[in-house]
């Protein structure tokens, strides 16, 4: 017998193969030029031919994304903990950050490039700004929804505030933290790419702009395939981490936030 997961994977894979075949067939039969919509085989060829080029630019984008995500994650965790533990900050800093959250961060890209120049700093700053909010808001939420009986239990042991934080609040917030991270990493890739569109001479965003201007549409698609694959790897990586760490939480997926 096949397991539930194998069956699901077969369905998803089958659908993908069907879509690709239809695409290939339609483009060939309708004689669509490759610079307009390339056939899947064109994209694969571009990917194989330019593998060194893609690898080099991919590493730049990946590195910037990971740095942005890492900084955003630590910052969100730290500020989230402070806001939920310190009443004064909850009243001052938190409303401020919630208000900032509704600001479209991507729209700041041009001005950030003015501030930080054409180096990698700009796109990393943009990535941090984008990834920070979903992680931060989920962390604060997670640290607040703690079971009050668990706190009472700890207080009956005369637990200190820091013990309550580390032993109760943080584990309780973990599902929300991971859900926030899942959104945050996708936002980070997005922001880094936009940063590279606007002001960079390396990275996949730069490559896409460059190839588009040369009508190298198969090349652009090759980039997109790579980026989607990376997004999937992050998503499933975090999912696997979640399954390992949160076996005890009964499917409590935390709420996301808007871009």
């Amino acid at each position, binding site marked *: 017998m096949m397991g539930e997961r194998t069956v699901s994977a077969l369905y998803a894979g089958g659908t993908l193969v069907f879509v690709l075949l239809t695409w290939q067939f339609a483009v060939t039969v309708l004689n669509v030029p490759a610079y307009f919509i390339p056939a899947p085989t064109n994209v694969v060829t571009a990917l194989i031919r330019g593998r060194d080029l893609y690898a080099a630019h991919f590493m730049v984008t990946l590195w910037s994304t990971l740095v942005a995500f890492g900084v955003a994650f630590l910052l969100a965790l730290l500020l989230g903990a402070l806001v939920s533990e310190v009443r004064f900050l909850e009243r001052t800093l938190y409303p401020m950050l919630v208000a900032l959250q509704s600001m479209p961060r991507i729209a700041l890209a041009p001005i950030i490039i003015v501030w930080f120049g054409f180096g990698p700093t700009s796109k990393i700053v943009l990535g941090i700004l984008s990834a920070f909010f979903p992680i931060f808001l989920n962390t604060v939420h997670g640290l607040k929804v703690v*079971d009050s*009986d*668990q706190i*009472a*239990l*700890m*207080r*009956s*042991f*005369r*637990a200190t505030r820091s*013990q309550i934080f580390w*032993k*109760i609040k943080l*584990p309780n917030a973990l599902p929300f933290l991971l859900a926030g991270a899942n959104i945050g990493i996708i936002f980070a890739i997005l922001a880094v790419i936009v940063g590279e569109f606007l002001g960079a001479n390396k990275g996949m965003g730069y490559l896409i702009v460059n190839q588009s201007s040369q009508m190298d549409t198969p090349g652009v698609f090759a980039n997109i395939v790579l980026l989607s694959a990376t997004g999937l790897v992050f998503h499933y990586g975090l999912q696997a981490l979640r399954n390992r760490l949160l*076996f*005890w*939480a*009964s499917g409590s997926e935390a709420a996301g936030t808007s871009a």
Partner: protein
Amino acid sequence: MTDPGPPIMQLVGVGKTYQTRDGKGVVALTPSTLDIQAGEFLSIVGPSGCGKTTLLNMMAGLIAPSSGSIQIAQSAGTAPRIGLVFQRPVLLPWRRVIDNVLLPVEVMGLAPPEAYRARALELLAMVGLEGFANAYPSELSGGMQQRVSIARSLVYDSAVLLMDEPFAALDAMTREELNLELLRIWKMTGRTIVFVTHNIPEAVLLSDRIVVMTPRPGQVREIVPVPLPRPRALSLMGDPDFGAIADRIRGMLRPAGAALAA
């Protein structure tokens, strides 16, 4: 038990009114006065909603009384530590059973850890959970989870142990076994136990005194002494004196009594 000595806990006019959303407030406990003797086994019985949990939480220092005061005697050496068994298990789902039992040891920094670990395993065996030390709470039934929480409350020495219907979720057999086990531990450690229950025979079997409360908003109605000899066995439940005490308490808790009080 001839000389009660000074009480370990003194409640004077302790009452509680909870604030509610509509601002009216709910009277959970009408001011009550009660002395708890060091080393005694005191039970509290009363209809649902009469404020037993509220009273226990105030004794544990988890919520502040709206009126009155609670004095806890300072013993010579260590400050009296209060142990509390909640009405529901309150386990940490990400910790294994053994680590849940050891949580208070960890929080209080009790040493040596190995000794407490051995003790935790002993307690788990005592509550019938041998072999479940490495399980997670979600793998246990409700009654098993409650037994873990009982083991957790016994792993460290508290001068006063407050138990809020600890055996309510257990089957009759396990319940009787744990009653006897609790009596044994109580005798061995000499601690004071305050025990909330809905089960009148259980209260009579275990207690030195039984506090009977009025329906909500509750108040101490009467304190019934249980002068039955110790050590007590289950066979005592057939004793006419036992039956007489149980009947007396039952009479106080009957709805007719409620109508009278209202």
